[in-house]
Every structure is written in structure tokens, then in C-alpha cells.
């Protein structure tokens, strides 16, 4: 209550340590460091450059999606269709190439349009119906799953698309979406660089642009945001479109890396993206989190995925581990959030 001193003495009570500890990604960073140390000590292979490149690749396939999903979660929504949407996008490109023949890039382009449209549709349905995003995207998850199987069988008569290897434009696509980039003699998959670029862009948007402000506000207190003129609806639709873009990018990688697409793929992956985002500090309730945190969450996934292989442990335990991480991270995040909301108020 004392406000006598002109140099406000209350500001100094917040040390560097405390400032650091209200950052959303700090818990994930600590967990990643511990995990790295554990695997590095039990497996000498783990820390070799080639292994690290493999880990980064594994992390990037979840991380690319986690960028879009984490922004969406900060905006207060989830997307259960994100996993199959990747397969939908890859199938769209492959099936268009198969059906019409011609250059594969027609398929790539139209696939982008359809991925963005699926995202926009999710967002539009959500804001129109005012249902929870859990229900809306659960519905689109099942519809896309069915479409993937049904349309693929209708067009190809099977459950997988024929190889795109002979299609014109394939080599260019492979170079752009599925090539290796040598860095100091180690081949790193190009997806790792896309992932890093997306994280940087997303962080820029969140911290340094108006839209970023709107994303936090739309998730944190949508009514208040709307009352001061934030276009909450448009923001949320935009976030779903962002997830659509990430899904397309990952889908193009899978398409050009594996040449054929299995129509039943992708189911369950949406949870990996959510885990990465939540472990990285995003709140399920929205309004809090970071893209960098989600990237660390994806890195933890990559380390766990490859780490158990290098350590020659049974991969059966991977999912148990991921679940336990999620639980621990959520408990920690809720604690952090309460702390942040309370601040140093006495």
C-alpha cells in the first residue's frame, strides 16, 4: 500500500529468474535438456551428427504442423482434423496428377487451394454454428477420413495412389519438398529448414504484429476482444487456414518423399501436434503459449521417437512416455499460468 517513494520500489522485486519462469516455453526447454542428457548418456550413437539430423527430421514432421496448431490453440481452438488433413492434401495432389495426367504441379497447386479451403471451412463452421471446436473438427476429422478412403478407392480402385515418380515436374517437387541439404557434411532434410522458417514467422506474427495481439486476445478473452474491436471471427478462421497451409506443406513432403500416398494414413497424428503444442506451453483454454515452445515440444517428440531406437529400448513404451510428458507438462503449465495471472500481486 505504500506509494510514498517516487522510484517505484515494487518493480525490483521481479528478478531475472522470475521473469524467465513465466515464459511459456521454459518447462519444455528443461524437459528437452533432461531428455537429451538421458539419451546421450545411454547411447553413444544418439549424439552423432547423422543421428541428430535424423532426430531433427522426425521432429520437423511433427513440428511443421505444431506451428499451425499451437497458434490455433493460443487462439483458443483445437483442430482434431489436422492429422487426416495432411493425408487429404497429399491425396488431392496425387489423385489429380493420376486422373488428369499432366504436370504434378497442377496437383500441388490445387492441393494447396483445397487445404486452405478445408481450414477456412472448419473456421467458418465454428464461428457460424458457435459449437465448440472439438465437435466441429471431430466431425470434419471423420468426414475427411471417410473421403480419403472413399475417393481414393473410387478413382484408383485401391487404398493407395499410384507412384507419381514418372509425372512431369516430379524432380522439381522432390528438390523443393523432399531433398537433403548438406550442412558441414551432414545431410539434413529440407523439412527441418521449413520448420525453422515457420517457427520464426509464427513467432514474429505472435510477438510483433497486430494479428499476433488479436490471436492472444481471441483465445484469452474473446468477448473482451470483440468489444474493443478485434475481428475475433476472422482471426479464428485465419488460424484454421494457417493449419491448412502447414498440412499442405507436410503433405507435399510426404508425397514427394514416398511417391505414393496411403489413404488411411494420418489418423491419430493430430494428437501428436496437440501434445507438442501443450508440452511447449500452450494452454488448452487459449490465450497463452508460444510457437517456440511448440517447436521444443516437437523436438522432444523427435528425441523420444529416435532416442528409444538408438538406446535399443522397446518402442512399445514411446506412447506411454508421450502421455506422461503431456500430463506433466499440463500440470506445470497450469501452475505457471496461475502464477502469471497472479503475478507478484500480494
Amino acid at each position, binding site marked *: 500500500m505504500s506509494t510514498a517513494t517516487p522510484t517505484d520500489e515494487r518493480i525490483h522485486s521481479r528478478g531475472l529468474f522470475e521473469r524467465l519462469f513465466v515464459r511459456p516455453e521454459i518447462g519444455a526447454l528443461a524437459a528437452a535438456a533432461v531428455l537429451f542428457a538421458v539419451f546421450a548418456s545411454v547411447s553413444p550413437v544418439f549424439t552423432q551428427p547423422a543421428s541428430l539430423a535424423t532426430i531433427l527430421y522426425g521432429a520437423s514432421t511433427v513440428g511443421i504442423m505444431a506451428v499451425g496448431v499451437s497458434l490455433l490453440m493460443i487462439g483458443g481452438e483445437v483442430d482434431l482434423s489436422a492429422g487426416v488433413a495432411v493425408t487429404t492434401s497429399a491425396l488431392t495432389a496425387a489423385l489429380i496428377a493420376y486422373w488428369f495426367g499432366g504436370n504434378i504441379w497442377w496437383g500441388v497447386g490445387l492441393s494447396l487451394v483445397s487445404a486452405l479451403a478445408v481450414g477456412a471451412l472448419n473456421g467458418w463452421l465454428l464461428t457460424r454454428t458457435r459449437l465448440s471446436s472439438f465437435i466441429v473438427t471431430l466431425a470434419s476429422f471423420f468426414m475427411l477420413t471417410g473421403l480419403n478412403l472413399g475417393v481414393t478407392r473410387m478413382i484408383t480402385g485401391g487404398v493407395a495412389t499410384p507412384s507419381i515418380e514418372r509425372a512431369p515436374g516430379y524432380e522439381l517437387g522432390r528438390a523443393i519438398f523432399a531433398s537433403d541439404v548438406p550442412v558441414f557434411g551432414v545431410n539434413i532434410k529440407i523439412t527441418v529448414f521449413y520448420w525453422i522458417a515457420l517457427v520464426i514467422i509464427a513467432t514474429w506474427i505472435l510477438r510483433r504484429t*497486430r494479428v499476433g495481439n488479436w490471436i492472444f486476445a481471441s483465445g484469452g478473452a474473446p468477448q473482451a*476482444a*470483440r468489444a*474493443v474491436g478485434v*475481428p475475433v471471427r476472422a482471426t479464428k478462421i485465419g488460424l484454421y487456414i494457417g493449419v491448412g497451409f502447414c498440412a499442405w506443406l507436410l503433405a507435399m513432403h510426404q508425397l514427394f518423399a514416398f511417391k505414393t500416398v496411403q489413404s488411411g494414413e494420418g489418423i491419430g497424428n493430430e494428437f501428436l501436434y496437440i501434445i507438442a503444442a501443450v508440452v511447449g506451453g500452450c494452454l488448452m483454454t487459449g490465450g497463452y503459449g508460444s510457437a517456440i515452445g511448440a517447436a521444443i515440444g516437437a523436438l522432444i517428440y523427435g528425441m523420444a521417437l529416435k532416442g528409444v531406437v538408438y538406446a535399443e529400448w522397446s518402442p512399445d513404451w514411446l506412447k506411454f512416455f508421450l502421455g506422461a510428458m503431456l500430463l506433466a507438462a499440463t500440470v506445470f503449465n497450469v501452475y505457471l499460468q496461475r502464477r*502469471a495471472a497472479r*503475478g507478484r500481486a500480494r
Partner: protein
Amino acid sequence: MSAPILSLTGVGKTHGNVISLAGVDLAVRAGEVTCVLGDNGAGKSTLIGIISGNHAPTSGELAIDGETVRLTSPRHALERGIATVYQDLAVVPLMPIWRNFFLGQELTRGRGPLRRLDIARMREITRRELAGMGIDLRDVDQPIGTLSGGERQSVAIARAVYFGARILMLDEPTAALGVKQSAIVLRHIRRARERGLGVIFITHNPRHAMPVADRFLVLGRGRTIGSFPRAEASIERITALMAGGDELDELLEELDRD
């Protein structure tokens, strides 16, 4: 008397066959505080919704500077100079104070893809404006949720004033506050009036209305049951009106008999 900035003529709103509000007249002038009073269900929220652009009236007209307008969204209302401060909805608790202050009206610099928030300037303006409102502030970077209820209301009011609102509408700003904090908010209302804003102060507490109001509008069951200047107002008169006058007397008598 100057021409009103905002005037409502015969404004009403029906939800299906339920009449939430009917035939309300209201004129808000610069430098004047209009208190809208009413018990629960009197139609206050509907009136707020109409003035803030959240929903359109089903009858009557709303005019700004004498020109009839249809407000289509809160953003539209803001553009026309009507700022609304809600009791619980004023701020986004987990966001820093300065981000809340500029939410929806962020300052930027640079252009194209490099267009970015002018963070240093926004921090500085937030600090200055809040100090100008007499708000003692620790750190504009702390989440606004760490402030007390009164401080949060004060920030929201300061924000509306800074962004050039001509009409400031406050929805029950003192309802959840203690005596001391209520007094602070009432002081901000007076300051806003002194700066020439038209203030609409919605409350169900006549004791908070009396010290600041220039005009009173009392609503009951969706209708105007009293509209008078300060000179004709008293806490007793307003309380009696809000409680339904005769009904209250009867009730009191009944209680006395028991």
C-alpha cells in the same frame, strides 16, 4: 443546452415474443453523465447491447450528431466514437497491460511484411496515459490480470478516453468493487466528463449514481419509468422507482405486520 452527440428515440428490442426493451428515449450530451438505473431484468443489458453495436434495435432510431445510424458491430460503434467498458469483459487477463491498452488499435511502424508493432511507443503512451489518469502503475509489462478490479476498470476507461471516444459507456463499473475502488472509478467518470465526453453510466446502485450523474434514466421491465435531471433526483425517489414504488411500500408494510 448543446445538441446531443447520441440520441435514441423510441428504441425497442424484441426477442421472439419477449419484449426486452420498448420505447426508450435517451440523449447524451458532451460533458454530461447520464446514469441508467434499473433492477435486474430492467433492460439495461439490452440497452447496452444496442448502443455498443452488439445487436440492432427492432424498433426506434439511434442517431449520432443528429444523423440516423445502424451500428453493425462493436468495431463500427467504436469508429463512430462510442466506447463501451464492461464490468468483467473489459480486458484480456493474461496479456500485458500495454497490449491490453492498445488491443484492436495497435500502433505499428514499417510497411508491407515488415509492418510491426511499435512496442516502445505503446509502452510509453500506456505509462503516460495511466499516470495522467492518476493510476499508480508498477510495470506496464505485467499481465493485466494482476491488477485489482478497480485498476482494470481504470485502464479500460483510460483506453477509451485516449482513443478519442466521444461517448463512454460503462456497464456496472462499480458492481464488484469495494468502497475505495468504487470511489476511484467514480473519480475517473468525473474526469472523463471534464474532458468533454458524454458518459453513460449503467448501474443498479443509486448511491454510486448520485455523486456523478447529471441526468437519470430509470428502467423497469424494459420500459422507461423515470427520466429526470439531477435537480429532481434523490436516492429515495430512485430507489422507490427501481423497486416498483407502491409494491415496495406494500411489502414493507407486510413485513412490519409480521
